[in-house]
């Protein structure tokens, strides 16, 4: 049993409001620290990659600071890693915002902008802003939310979104949550083992969002007990 104090790293890559992510962590009893240090990220029991903003700037910063490599190691090692909004998008391989830029490549897939018109030809307001329902995708034989931070969340629960891009995973198995906007469904949550991503902002999604943090905290604690030091 590890008696080293729990430590969750919140990666600060220069944009986005981290303070509310930090508050949500505190609220559920997670000891979290905002950091730009790859060492701290590697030593953490759990890692949060939050944010809003532009991918090229974010990726450039992560690459320069060595945080990209640290994050990839974390993903590989098995430490619980949660990407939020832009953070989720950066887990993917490829972005298309401004330039064809590389993401972290932890998950296979790309990032695509919402179209300016929906299926009926009506103008679609971008970014997608507001509360929307997150559901399990149809056609899954097993419960895709089991063993993920969404585990305790009722299906179809409403979460808060603000984004102009959506992820398109290369492997449909990692898409575990879908949401409808502009007449079509897009992937709003991804998971593969210890890596989880949500397009919405759980720290802004009221009590259900906090529950997601609580579930993440449970995973962090479980990992801390068994993790090799």
């Amino acid at each position, binding site marked *: 049993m590890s008696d080293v104090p729990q430590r969750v790293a919140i990666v600060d890559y220069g*944009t*986005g*409001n981290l*303070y*509310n992510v930090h*508050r*949500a962590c505190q*609220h559920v009893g997670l000891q979290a620290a905002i950091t730009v240090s790859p060492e701290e990220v590697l030593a953490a029991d759990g890692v949060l990659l939050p944010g*809003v*903003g*532009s991918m090229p700037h974010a990726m450039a910063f992560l690459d320069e600071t060595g945080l990209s490599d640290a994050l990839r190691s974390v993903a590989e090692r098995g430490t619980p890693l949660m990407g939020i909004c832009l953070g989720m998008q950066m887990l993917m391989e490829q972005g298309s915002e401004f330039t064809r830029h590389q993401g972290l490549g932890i998950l296979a897939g790309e990032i695509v902008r919402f179209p*300016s018109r929906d299926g009926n030809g009506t*103008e679609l*307001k*971008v*970014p997608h*802003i*507001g*509360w*929307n329902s997150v559901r399990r995708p149809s056609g899954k034989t097993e419960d895709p939310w089991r063993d993920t931070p969404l585990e305790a969340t009722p299906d179809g629960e*409403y979460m*808060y979104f*603000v*984004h*102009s891009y959506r992820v398109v995973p290369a492997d449909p198995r990692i898409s575990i949550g879908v949401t409808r*906007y502009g007449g079509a469904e897009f992937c709003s949550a991804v998971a593969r083992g210890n890596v989880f991503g949500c397009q919405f*902002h759980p*720290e*802004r*999604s*009221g*009590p*259900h*969002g*906090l529950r997601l943090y609580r579930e993440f905290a449970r995973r962090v604690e479980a990992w801390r007990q068994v993790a090799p030091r």
Partner: protein
Amino acid sequence: MITRIIPRLDVKGPNLVKGVHLEGLRVLGKPEAFARQYYEQGADELLFMDVVASLYGRNSLLELVERTADEIFIPLAVGGGLRSLDDIRGVLRAGADKVTLNTAAVRRPEFISEAARRFGSSTIVVSVEAIRRSDGSYEAYTDNGREKTGLDAVAWAVRAAELGAGELVVTSIDREGTGKGYDLDLTERIARAVPVPVIACGGAGTAEHVAQVLGTGAAAASLASLLHYNQARRYLAEPNQFSPEINVAHLQRPGFAKVQDIDLIQLKAYLTDRGFVSRPLVAHV
């Protein structure tokens, strides 16, 4: 249609205030208490405006924002007197997700771009407060409705969106506080002209008014009087929580004739029936 219902809390010092045409501000209670109620009643977001910020040249809501963010986990937009990137950073640090800009943006429109680049477009909301001119056009105002700009409000809104504002809050000063309904013409003109979401504000007196404005293309509706008077009645504030020199006589019977007596839960239920979907009511444990 997905929408958001956003209570707007105008704050002066420690108090929540409300006026008519942004004038004659009266104290209705404590903003933290009202914010908490609205959060629990299903508010999609909250908007805090510091109404004396331009008078004092600074935004004084940091403490309120911090206290709110510690307990309330929905998006929070904060405005009033934000003049520099540092001002914005300070408010975001305190817990705001978005900031609204008006005076600073009118004085130097490039500030919108600078702020959007630094903090992300979705963080930067431009607040357009307008009065209808006799020729049917609208003029934008700053300083809580006190100073004319000479700018056509619709043209200014288009420019603000082009410069990087992620959203616009559009307030009709003519309707604000009257309970006579939103200015549908103003809202529609701007909503049609810009590609970003428009939050309509100013004039809601009934649930039907809110449905109307959402039907004109506003992505979200903000409201104050419609909710605050009802709230003030339900939770009558103790007079001794206010400074003794402040007039609170109107709190004995808070209300305003043209404003319907409904709460946020009832309002959202009505809107859901009319096809406008927003954050559902959930239990707050």
